[in-house]
Structure formats: C-alpha cells, structure tokens
C-alpha cells in the first residue's frame, strides 16, 4: 500500500480511488508499525483530499476530525476544512477561512493558490486570472503557477498570453520536453511567423527525446505549414534554403514516426493515410 501511495505522489497522478483504497486503512490505525506518525498524518491528509474528490463526505469528515484532534488550530488543517467547504459548494465559508489564514500569514503560498482554485470552481475566471497574476508578481519562481495560468489562458483562446506563461515556465524549467512541446504548440496555434519558432522548439524537444511523438508530429506540421506559406508568397532565396531544411526535417520526422509505429499495423496505417492527404 505504501508503495502505491508513494508512486502516485511522485508521479503527481490523480487517482483518488487508489488513494482511498490504499490509504484509508491508515486512518483506522492499521499498519501502525510500518509508518512513523508524521507519515501517517500525511497519508490521512491525502486520503482526505481523495475522499473529497470522490464525494465521500463521511470519510473526509473522519480524516479531518483525526487531523484536527492531533493538530488543533493548525493553518494547514484549517485550509483543509476550507477545501471541505468548497467541495460542499459553500464557497463563501471557504473563502472566509482562506482570507483569515492569509491575514495571519500573508506569505502562505498554498492558501493563495487555493483561493485561485476556488475562484475557478465558482466560474470567476477573470478573478482567478487576476489573483494568479498578483501571486506571480511576488512569486515569479513558482512553475506550477505559470503552468496553471498558461492553462487558463489557453482555455480562453488567449494564446499570446499563454505563450508568455510558457516562456516564463521554460526559464525556470528549461529542459522539460512537455513544456517545450506545449510552447511550440501554442506558437503554431498563433500562426504566421511564429510557426518557424514553433519548429525550433519542437526540434529542441526532439533533441532531448528523439522519439517524442508530439515533437515529431509537430515538427512535421510546422514544415508543411512553412513550405505551404512560402509557396503562396513566392518567397526569396532564404525561403528556398529554408524549404530544403523543411524537407530534411520532415523526412526525419516521418522516418521516426514510421519507426515508432512498427509492429502496430493499425496505428501505422493511420499515419500513412494522414501522410497521403
């Protein structure tokens, strides 16, 4: 059970069903010999959040009661209580709790972010964006916050602002192929001259992960788009050189995609039909 919980924590995977299944026994005091007290309470906190995720209010209540008994008045436990309010739809009560913690502890990063999450749950996207921007003004080194803001902007089709967030995120975490690809995808979506920049970033991702499917497809798409637009605008010499580069990159991408799908006829055929278009 401990191994499963550790794996979920490390992978930041959201599987509340597994957390409840493997973590709930710790609440009852089972496996007491295999964990220290601190770890047991950390697990109970995780079970609490998972219980809220699954709508298991009674289990959540029992977890909170246990934590409250052990850590009365703790800000961390108070913010958990606020989460329970959120889960029940009592947004006013939750915001009140978060605000009172912030008053006592203005630098509490976790609660600032909970406030943003609450605003999103309420549907107040503008408020959430404002709060997140305020938070980032003071905490520009928080990758999770930049990621969340990028997500929100992308959902609202504000791709230029999203691109800015990905840039900030990449300053903090430069060699993450996931972020490199998402930035590239955002640039491609912006279109025009950004497509060549997107091509560069897909290539950077491939330098780190030569078989990254997103980067391969992305590189191929960028090359097609660049060649397509050059053909339309009857470009100059530099564009013709670039066309040769595109052809090379495209060929490379297609070769690696074909290699990736070797042994999987169905997926290989999907690729071939797409290339025929």
């Amino acid at each position, binding site marked *: 059970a401990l191994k499963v919980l550790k794996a979920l924590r490390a992978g930041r995977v959201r599987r509340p069903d597994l957390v409840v299944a493997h973590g709930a026994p710790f609440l009852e005091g089972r496996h007491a010999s295999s964990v220290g007290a601190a770890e047991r309470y950390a697990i109970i906190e995780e079970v609490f959040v998972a219980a809220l995720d699954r709508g298991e209010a009674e289990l959540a209540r029992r977890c909170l009661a246990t934590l409250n008994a052990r850590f009365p008045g703790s800000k961390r436990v108070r913010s958990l209580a606020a989460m329970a309010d959120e889960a029940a739809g009592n947004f006013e009560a939750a915001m009140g709790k978060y605000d009172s913690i912030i008053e006592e502890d203005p630098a509490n990063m976790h609660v600032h972010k909970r406030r943003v999450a609450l605003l999103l749950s309420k549907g107040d996207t503008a408020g959430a964006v404002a709060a997140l921007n305020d938070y980032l003004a003071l905490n520009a080194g928080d990758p999770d916050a930049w990621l969340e803001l990028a997500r929100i902007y992308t959902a609202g089709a504000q791709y230029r602002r999203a691109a800015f967030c990905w840039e900030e995120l990449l300053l903090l975490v430069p060699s993450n192929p996931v972020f490199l690809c998402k930035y590239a995808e955002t640039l491609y*979506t912006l*279109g025009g001259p950004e497509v060549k920049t997107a091509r560069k970033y897909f290539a950077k991702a491939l330098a780190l992960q030569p078989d990254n499917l997103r980067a391969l497809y*992305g590189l191929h798409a960028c090359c097609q788009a660049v060649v397509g637009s050059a053909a339309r605008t009857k470009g100059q010499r530099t564009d013709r050189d670039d066309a040769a580069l595109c052809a090379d990159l495209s060929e490379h991408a297609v070769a690696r995609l074909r290699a990736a799908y070797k042994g999987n006829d*169905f*997926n290989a055929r999907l690729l071939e039909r797409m290339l025929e278009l």
Partner: protein
Amino acid sequence: RTRRGRAMATISSDAFVNMMLHSCKHPHRSVNGVLLGSVSEDGGVEVSEAVPLFHGILGLAPMMEVALNQVEGYCASVNSAVVGYYCANERRADTELTHLARKVGERIHARVPSALLIVLEASPASTASSSLPLKAFSLSGSVWQQRDPSSVKVDDEAGARAALEACLTAAAQYELCDFDDHLDDGARVWIGQKPAQLSGRSS
C-alpha cells in the same frame, strides 16, 4: 418519417458510454473528442462511435489537426464519417459552447450539414435521472442552436446507462486511451475502443 427540422440524432450505446467514460476519467479537466457515424437523407445523424481526443489543454492546433486528419483517414477506410464533436468543460456545470467547439464544429459542418455538437454535463449520479446528461447543438444559419432534448436519443438508453455504471464500478475509464494518451505511448490504440473490452482489461 420525421418532419423537417425534427430529424433525430441517435447516439449508439457504445458511443454514449465512451464519451461519459472519457469525462469520468478526467473529472477535473476538460475533455473532447469526435463523433463518427452516418447521416440520413432527412438530415438525421446516427453516431456509431465516439473517439476521445484530448484532456486538460484542448485548444492547441497542431495535435488537433493530426488527430482530425487521422480520424478522417480512418473513416474513409471503414465507410464512416466524422459527424460531430463532443466536449466537457472543466467546470461541468458550465455547458456553454467554447470558441474551440464552434471552430471544430464548423470544420465538420462544412462536409456534414447536420453536424452535431455535444457538451457533456456531469456524470449521472444515478440511473434514475430522466434526461440525458448532455446538451446537443446543430448549426442553424451561422448560429449553433441547442437541439430540443426530444430530438436526441441514445440507442437502448437503459442498457447504455447500465453498461456505464458497470464500467465505472470496474474503474474501466482508466483503460480508455485518448489521442493525448496515444501521444505519450505510441503503442496504444485510440480509435475503435469498445466499453466491453475496457471493462475486461480493468478487472
């Protein structure tokens, strides 16, 4: 025989279950996918399959284009067509059509005038609810109008709901592979998944 403007949209049991499983797999994220099937002469739509595409970040062009191109190629090979698009907003209570949904809808509508847009609501808490947990839209002129709920039905709805509940009990939603998952693991297949197979794998 249906009257003009009242052509039915029928969703197969498998398509309904797949859409709901996709939504249930990522309850805290937006999800989207395309609907495959056929159209009838009177403008009716029959959805035979729901192909899940993305979860989390939906609106980015390059992977969406790849997915749509591959789905269209698949359709040509099985004599089917892309007849619609489904999505669930991050806040399931929000059932508005997003800019992305309209854009994809218009692309599909260009070839299939009776194209269907579906916005999923929260998963039915019990099988006793009387209405389908979704809103359907059709393009009328340049406006996507919500279809009268009576013009949308699920084939064998009771059976579909039971199948969905069985899948959720078996945590089968975690076996569903969307295009995003495929991009993370090229060995996985994202088209042609049947709920019965998913339950089989998860038990």
